[in-house]
């Protein structure tokens, strides 16, 4: 069956208002970056103890979600599910947009963003960061090729290969992102090989949640039909991703509890860590996993668009909480340089390091989100990403109902 794609009109006041708000947030983010660049990181909450702060929480979330946003496309091409086919183009666009937003934040948070060209010309091939430069460029390339095969009939025959390449690449990409932390042998919170596969699972759930939110908003705001069956299916899938992510989190902490040397950091995150403990149990586990699962695994609840959107938003918030716990909490817990000794120094050895994120950091992070949304908003206006109708009967007549 032929699916008709059409650009959104993008002339309504609502469209311009949306773009205006997104643009404003993006501008605020850029302004914040300029302010940080001008005064130095002294205007942030980051210190020599908490060296990665709020911008990394947003950036890593966006990059991880980028890979997961490709889910719909992968299911269509790699696993040959035709019902997902109409969803594939938007899936590719959201993936590219999220990655671009995340990278922008990462780049503008550098101590010397003016030297970003150095990062592209000097490589240390042992560094996971340097590999990531290739992983990101590769991801852009493969997804762009894949989109091309979907939009241009003359190359449509290569779609399968491009889709497959993009699929493999995104798994490598998220492995690379997880490994940024997994390779930090010195930090007890991170030195686990489980981090890479765990990040892949996280990416499935965060990416799917963001994708669903954009999909629902796009169809609601353009007044195009979006069938219940497709949402039903995607919602259930998201439920499974959330469950798998939670399972990984449990296994991660259980294995850590097995090793005596990790008991300190585990007690910190799970019991005594104050804000990190709260973010873990309330943010990541309860609001970010349990509540969405209750909604998503219940056919009746999931059928309500309001509740489905709530579940997606909660998954996103839970994901940000998870990043905060992993990135900031992992640094707040002091390094144990002298096991068996109590440590004290002018450089804050042996004490939990406080962190108070400042407004510019926060704005920079939100700016990245805004840039991602701007790319999607403009993308759907200039190119044919969205099917005219995703009504059940148009998408997959057999599965409808």
């Amino acid at each position: 069956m032929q699916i008709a794609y059409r650009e959104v009109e993008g002339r309504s006041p609502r469209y311009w208002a949306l773009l205006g708000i997104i643009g404003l947030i993006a501008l605020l983010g850029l302004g914040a970056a300029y302010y940080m660049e001008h005064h130095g990181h002294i205007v942030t909450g980051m210190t020599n103890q908490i060296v990665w702060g709020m911008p990394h929480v947003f950036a890593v979330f966006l990059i991880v979600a980028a890979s997961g946003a490709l889910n719909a496309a992968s299911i269509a091409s790699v696993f040959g599910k035709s019902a997902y086919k109409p969803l594939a183009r938007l899936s590719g666009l959201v993936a590219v947009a999220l990655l671009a937003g995340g990278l922008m934040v990462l780049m503008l948070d550098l101590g010397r963003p003016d030297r970003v060209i150095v990062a592209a010309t000097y490589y240390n091939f042992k560094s996971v960061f340097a590999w990531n430069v290739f992983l990101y460029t590769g991801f852009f390339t493969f997804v762009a090729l894949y989109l091309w095969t979907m939009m241009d009939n003359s190359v449509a025959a290569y779609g399968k290969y491009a889709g497959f390449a993009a699929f493999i690449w995104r798994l490598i990409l998220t492995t690379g992102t997880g490994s940024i932390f997994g390779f930090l042998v010195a930090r007890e919170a991170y030195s686990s090989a489980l981090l890479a596969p765990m990040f892949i699972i996280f990416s499935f759930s965060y990416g799917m949640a963001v994708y669903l939110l954009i999909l629902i908003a796009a169809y609601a705001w353009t007044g195009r039909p979006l069938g219940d069956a497709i949402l039903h299916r995607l919602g259930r899938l998201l439920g499974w991703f959330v469950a798998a992510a939670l399972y990984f989190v449990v296994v991660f902490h259980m294995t850590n509890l097995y090793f005596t040397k990790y008991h300190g950091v585990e007690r910190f995150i799970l019991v005594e860590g104050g804000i990190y403990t709260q973010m873990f149990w309330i943010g990541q586990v309860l609001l970010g996993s349990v509540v969405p699962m209750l909604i998503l695994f219940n056919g009746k609840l999931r059928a309500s668009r309001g509740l489905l959107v709530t579940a997606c938003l909660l998954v996103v918030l839970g994901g940000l909480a998870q990043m905060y716990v992993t990135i900031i909490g992992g640094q707040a817990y002091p390094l144990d340089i002298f096991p068996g000794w109590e440590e004290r120094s002018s450089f804050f050895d042996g004490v939990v390091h406080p962190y108070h994120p400042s407004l510019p950091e926060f704005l920079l992070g939100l700016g990245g989100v805004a840039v991602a949304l701007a790319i999607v908003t403009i993308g759907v206006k200039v190119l044919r990403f969205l099917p005219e109708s995703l009504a059940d009967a148009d998408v997959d007549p057999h599965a409808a109902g």
Partner: protein
Amino acid sequence: MTDNKTTPVDEGRRRFLTASAAMAGVAVAPGVVLYEIAHGKPADEPASHAVRWGMLIDTNQCQEGCDECVKACGEENGFGHGTRETDSQWIRKVELRDMRTGRTKSLPVMCQHCAEPPCVDVCPTGASFKRPDGIVLVDRHICIGCRYCMMACPYKARSFVHERITDQNPDVPRGIGCVESCTMCVHRVDRDQQPACVEACARAGHGAILFGNLNDPNSEIAKRIAQYSTMELRADLKLNLGVRYQGF
């Protein structure tokens, strides 16, 4: 860079060093010379693998409450003595208390100049690098300020420059937005001098830090390491450190 000739000032300094070294040696433990003059390299010669610069810290000589090494480092390398969470601290005094026995110890911690430095492994641009003579440095021209090295260092040895800097020591370039750490006073070592902290500690009469060539079996530091039991911090990570501790 300076040339190879010694100036009268250098001569005087060297005589002073030798004298204080002898005094320190006598004062601390008769028969054991704690101090030796490092043999550097001519400025036009590249650093060589034949040498591996290192330090041995005798925790029995290091005094609680004394921070002469820390002060000397700040002066030599042109940063203040600020101890805010955002201030650079290339070297710090760590006070320890044994959790079981209550025994206390005091010792300086700085970049350990790992032979397998995690900070160098993770640096995306190669700004973090190890010289052939074992000194680990940051190239200020290609550091992009990503701070991954700070995440990777097991000793929290690195600092990020959070603010604009004025008043620099021309020998020690520093800059906002870059990461920095103990250079083992490479500019002094290359001029045949000892790191500032080593000198200051000797001047204060403690002589707790011995600097020298770990690769030369005849050097004082190599002999001491062969003779006494010494340890590396977080030895479980097997990074083969250039800084060793004695007296634990």
